[in-house]
């Protein structure tokens, strides 16, 4: 019998060897123990100390800076794009609002009180 045949023989014999199944009650007992254990460990998991520790440390500073920049950028862009409540974005051809320019060389009459149709 050469080595290769021996290996095959022993592997085949042991692979086909059946010794029965473990007691099904073991799984139930283990699961019960695990449930009890995990309830105890859950109490420790509620601690935020590790999270705050990470938050106020210099770890992953690039990531944190990136996140803060992104939040700031989004909040600014959000304010720029939003339309305030009560303002009307449509134009009224009967009423023109002009901007007053403060210039001492020119006298510009404020036109916001003049009706546009009276100028025609």
């Amino acid at each position: 019998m050469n080595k290769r045949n021996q290996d095959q023989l022993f592997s085949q014999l042991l692979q086909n060897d059946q010794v029965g199944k473990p007691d099904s009650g073991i799984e139930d007992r283990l699961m019960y123990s695990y449930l009890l254990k995990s309830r105890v460990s859950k109490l420790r998991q509620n601690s935020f100390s590790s999270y705050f520790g990470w938050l106020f440390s210099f770890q992953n500073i690039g990531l944190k800076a990136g996140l803060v920049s992104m939040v700031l950028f989004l909040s600014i862009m959000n304010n720029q794009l939003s339309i305030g409540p009560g303002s009307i974005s449509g134009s009224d051809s009967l009423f023109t609002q002009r901007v007053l320019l403060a210039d001492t060389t020119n006298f510009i009459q404020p036109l916001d009180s003049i009706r546009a149709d009276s100028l025609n």
Partner: protein
Amino acid sequence: MIFRRKNKTFTDSELMQQIVSGDHAAFSELYNRYKDRMYYYFYRMLNNSPEHANDFLQELFMKIVEKPTSYNPTYAFHTWLYSVANNMCKNEYRRRNIRLEYQEQVASKPAIDFFNEKTIEPEQVIEKIFQTLDQLGEEHRSAFLLRYREEFSIREVAEILGLPEGTVKSRLFNARKILAEKLNYLKDEIEF
């Protein structure tokens, strides 16, 4: 089992990480993945006793329940599990001197007459193999089981047993040599 998963298949290491965070389904899946293999290992290592095999199987997984963080994810889970199981067997051998007890039991069993049997069943050959391995010692039996039943590589067997690869090869060589002598006359009679 109510905690069984449905879709995704996780690796052993992933399941262990989930067990550490209290995932019941992960524990159930890991147990079902290894229970038969570990039961067989304990059965064959400990006197072919179903009671011992069940007790040790439960104790092994209780170790995971009690201290799942003892597993280092940088190593393969199956080698770690078998090394824990093997240490449990070694402790048991030391504590109860089970080898002597087993030899006494074997001596009391009616020996199979392989020369006079007309047909040799594979079960009888297995029994003969384990009788022979018992004479060699538990260290040979563990290496033999891990190599031929579990089909671990020599490197993995060495890792599990905490031995140099050369020692494992030497033990396997000795076991094969003696078993070949015992089983040589059977090779033509057994149909595989």
